[in-house]
């Protein structure tokens, strides 16, 4: 566990010289998974979450986790700006954090001279690290306006573009290369849209590459948005078999109760639809793997204490050992209850003689409940119990599930008190004690 223990976290900034970055990073993390936004989606109440997180939340209670206003999954919209910010922040984070930590170390060594200057330099470096793009024009800007936060800087860039247009050159709207106005038309005819590295004074503004990126990325994105989102189903209107069929058609496991089918379909819808939102969609195989993980942790394969005993690979020996005290107690109880009825032994003997077949026995019991007390097979109990124990051990060795052991133990109890119907079915009364234990096992 210790190897995975170092998890990046917004509080990493607290002890560095950039402690103001803590709220910044916290704002870039999803409130549900506490990780950086993965495919951020905005709700109708203007809160942003990872696509998968908010889809799961809405599927479970239909409310925004932050403000609790009702919302629906199909009203979610992509928050592309946040995605870009998160991506660039994540790229810049390691370098920035390293610098900020070194800064603290340095300050501890040298006292605190040049602190302000140092921090400003760090900020500049950080901005540069964020974007690996031409930075000549930006450098001068950032030196002039170090304290700027990013939105005003973008405005300045826009203004810059307007000013630059005044120098007699115009920009090709396709590839953004600047040229004389008279040559633009002939250039446009052959322009392929690839922006070449800027040369000379044609320093490109920061917003330009991202426009180009967008243009280039759009065709790649097409197939992603072509993936059809799964509609939500009204499960109460669907019969179990129809639902099972739907799951089969989707290519996901169709086993289990209707309840489980619904849960699985909801989860698959969440996984699938959030993958449709993603700019980096994953393959169906990966999604199926995720579904499998879900299945094992929360779906049908989730540990369910009641179901453990029913499993085929159930460890009967282990169970018998771990619950030995309870079995012993049952047996002891059975013994104790035997004692008070010994007095009626004599009468019972008489009764025994009357019966020759199991059928008679059954009749006898059915007809006279009064005699139940008399019919305790007390004289054989000691033997019966030892046989039970023997059989239980043997059953264990034979690999029978301990469910039958539990049955045996409870039967041992039942024997002494009341009539155990299964046991009497075939055996004549006299042989009952010896054979009784065979019948449930061999059934």
């Amino acid at each position, binding site marked *: 566990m210790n190897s995975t223990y170092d998890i990046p976290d917004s509080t990493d900034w607290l002890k560095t010289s950039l402690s103001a970055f803590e709220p910044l990073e916290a704002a870039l993390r999803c409130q549900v998974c506490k990780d950086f936004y993965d495919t951020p989606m905005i709700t109708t109440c203007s809160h942003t979450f990872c696509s998968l997180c908010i889809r799961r939340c809405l599927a479970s209670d239909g409310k925004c986790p932050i403000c609790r206003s009702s919302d629906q999954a199909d009203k979610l919209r992509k928050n592309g700006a946040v995605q870009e910010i998160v991506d660039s922040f994540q790229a810049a984070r390691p370098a920035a954090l390293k610098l900020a930590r070194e800064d603290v170390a340095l300050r501890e060594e040298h006292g605190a001279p040049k602190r302000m200057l140092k921090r400003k330099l760090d900020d500049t470096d950080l901005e540069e690290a964020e974007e690996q793009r031409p930075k000549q024009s930006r450098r001068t800007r950032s030196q002039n306006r170090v304290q700027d936060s990013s939105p005003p800087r973008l405005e300045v860039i826009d203004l810059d573009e307007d000013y630059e247009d005044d120098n007699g050159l115009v920009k090709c709207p396709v590839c953004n290369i600047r040229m004389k106005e008279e040559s633009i038309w002939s250039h446009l005819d052959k322009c392929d849209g690839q922006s070449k590295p800027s040369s000379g004074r044609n320093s490109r503004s920061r917003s330009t590459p991202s426009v180009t990126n967008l243009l280039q990325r759009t065709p790649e994105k097409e197939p992603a948005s072509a993936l059809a989102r799964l509609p939500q189903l009204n499960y109460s209107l669907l019969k179990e078999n129809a639902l099972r069929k739907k799951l089969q058609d989707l290519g996901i496991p169709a086993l289990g109760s209707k309840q489980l089918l619904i849960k699985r379909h909801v989860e698959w819808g969440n996984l699938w639809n959030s993958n449709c939102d993603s700019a980096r969609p994953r393959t169906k195989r990966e999604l199926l793997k995720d579904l499998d993980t879900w299945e094992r*942790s929360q779906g049908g394969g989730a540990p369910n204490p009641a179901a453990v005993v029913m499993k085929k690979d159930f460890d009967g020996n282990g169970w018998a050992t771990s619950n030995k005290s309870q079995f012993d107690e049952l047996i002891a109880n059975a013994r104790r209850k035997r004692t008070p009825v010994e007095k009626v032994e004599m009468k019972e003997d008489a009764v025994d003689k009357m019966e020759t077949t199991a059928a008679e026995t059954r009749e006898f019991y059915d007809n006279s409940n009064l005699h139940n007390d008399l019919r305790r097979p007390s004289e054989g109990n000691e033997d019966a119990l030892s046989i039970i124990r023997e059989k239980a051990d043997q059953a264990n060795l034979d690999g029978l599930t301990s469910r039958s052991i539990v049955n045996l133990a409870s039967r041992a109890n039942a024997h002494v008190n009341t009539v155990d119907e299964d046991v009497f079915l075939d055996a004549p009364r006299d042989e009952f004690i010896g054979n009784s234990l065979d019948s449930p096992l061999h059934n």
Partner: protein
Amino acid sequence: MSSSRSQTPTKRLLNELQTYQSDPNDALVELGPVSDNELTHWTAVMKGVPGTAYEGGRWKLDIRIPSNYPNAPPEVKFVTRICHPNVNFKTGEICLDLLKTSWSPAYTITTTLTSIQQLLTSAEPDSPLNVDIAQLFRLGDFVGAEALIRYYTESERWEGRQSV
């Protein structure tokens, strides 16, 4: 990126733990998993709010985290006995809507515990789990209630592993 898609609450719990360790919660003396092997069973020690009848108290809490956390709330119980209208004196069960119906995945273990600490000073005697103290509140016997609370806060105080 794909790690954030993990189905189990492990990743988020580690994240919360990290956050707590570098930015501790004023309401708590300690918080963390019971053992390294079992990340879904935490324990915490809570402080009493100064200036109230619970002042100076220390209570140990037991926190069980379900497998579909954070979409389902953690189960929080007082291990140390506490005298409070909304806490069962014997079982430690807490009556707080946050832990039941109004849970939201945006809450964390620490914010939940902060809410529980706030519950100490804003009791709801009309939905009691401890009828005796709730009755004192309802009848307006605040002196008696405070005395009783102070008595239990002192006598039941959690003394294990004091770090303050």
